[in-house]
């Protein structure tokens, strides 16, 4: 019976995922929890998670694929995996942060960075991410002077 090698993880909306242990402990959070439990022969370990079912599944999937694919294919797969819209990206971000999965976090932050790079100027950045401009006019002008070499 292979159950002892798997962890069962429950997300907040009560969906249960069976995950191979070696994959589950890629999440630093789960790793810490399992060592705290201190039992090698656990069969079912239930953890309450905040992230929703879908993003947990995605994080799981990512980690799983990470273990299987060779370098070149991995980078192709990864770029497709992260080609999602802002909402999904945000969920992935939150999941990666909460579960402390470094590789997922790296992938997501890089993707957000790519979004920022693609923005031609400051206004586009604000629009893409929905950020309000809270500068006074004078402060904005000072910063603009710094950027004079930027030829925007």
């Amino acid at each position, binding site marked *: 019976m292979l159950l002892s090698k798997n962890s069962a993880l429950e997300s907040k909306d009560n969906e249960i995922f069976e995950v191979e242990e070696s994959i589950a402990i890629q999440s630093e959070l789960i790793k810490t929890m399992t060592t705290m439990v201190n039992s090698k022969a656990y069969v079912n370990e239930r953890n309450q998670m905040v992230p929703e079912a879908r993003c947990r599944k995605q994080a799981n999937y990512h980690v799983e694929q990470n273990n299987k694919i060779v370098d070149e294919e991995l980078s192709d797969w990864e770029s497709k995996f992260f080609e999602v819209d*802002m909402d999904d990206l945000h969920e992935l971000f*939150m999941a990666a942060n909460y579960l402390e999965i470094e590789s997922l976090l790296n992938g997501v932050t890089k993707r957000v*960075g790519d979004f920022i790079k693609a923005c031609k100027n*400051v206004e586009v950045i604000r629009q893409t991410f929905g950020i309000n401009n809270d500068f006074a006019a004078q402060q904005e002008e000072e910063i603009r002077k710094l950027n004079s070499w*930027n030829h925007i």
Partner: protein
Amino acid sequence: MCYKTHEEDDDLAYFDCLPDALLLLIFNKLHDLKSLTNCLSVSKRFRSLVPFTDTIFISIPPLPKPSNIAASYINNTLRQVFHNLFLKPLRCFHRLMASPKSTTMSFDISCCHSNGVLRIFKEMKSLHLELPLHGDGELGSSNGASFLQWKADFGSNLRTCIIVGATSFQKCNTFSSSAICSQRKEERIFMEETVLNDDELKLRVIWTISCLIAASTRQYLLKQILADNPNVPMLERVVISDANKQGMFSMGKEELVEMRNSINTKQEASSSSMERSPVPEVNMKLWYLPILDLPDSGYVMKGATLVLIRPVVDGMIENNSDDPLVGDEKPFTEAVREMSKVKKSYLMTMSSF
């Protein structure tokens, strides 16, 4: 951490939900100075966090022509005339021998000046500058090099330089045949005995000199930048590459400390006329193969040459190839690996220039 339901507009809450550490992680992965400076203007929160970014990549733009070029040319000429009055004749000779073209600063480093935007990033750990495409064509192309790449590691002076050059560099798809492979292996033993004639050797020395000049120009550039931006105590790594991907100048933590100390202690007024640091007396070890197959990269080199350069003060050059300099460029790395296996090599010493 705030929790939101799906009904709300996610976008508006996106960045507000991210803790500062995560936002900084995004900035650390962004690298591009232009985007980072854009972020400075986005909001107060961004403005407060961006300066803590630890990795910066700057794609240095070329100087806009023509009026600036005229001004800088005049400045350079005047400066050269002025310094000529005080230069010893020998130095003149060295300068003539060395091509002056690559030393004129034809790119815009205003962002790195003491009042430029780079001064904001006081927590900078890693800095990568990419110089623009060389206006005069690739290094060495006027001297018969189809392929010429170098990697140099510097402290306050040159520490190591590895150069790979070839008179011909072409794609090749015929490595799969094992018959060809074994034939090449036999030929290789014969090829390793091939001797360079004087002209061929002289050509390679010219390649070496042009690479060393390019490397020392970058060191000079970095010295200026460090002098203008003294408050970067965390700086651990600097790389200066170019858009042609020909040369990589790098410095690690210890080397940066060494360089900073040398900036503080001595004035290098004499080298300012050349716009590059002087190259010390060096030992050169040169390997040569008339034909070199690079099956991993899929290329064939003719007239393949590997040169390893170290300053004379370090004594004999060991034949160890566990050099941290080789990394990214595939043909370069493979060539270094293959060429350093060749038993026969040439040893030379070059005086400083």
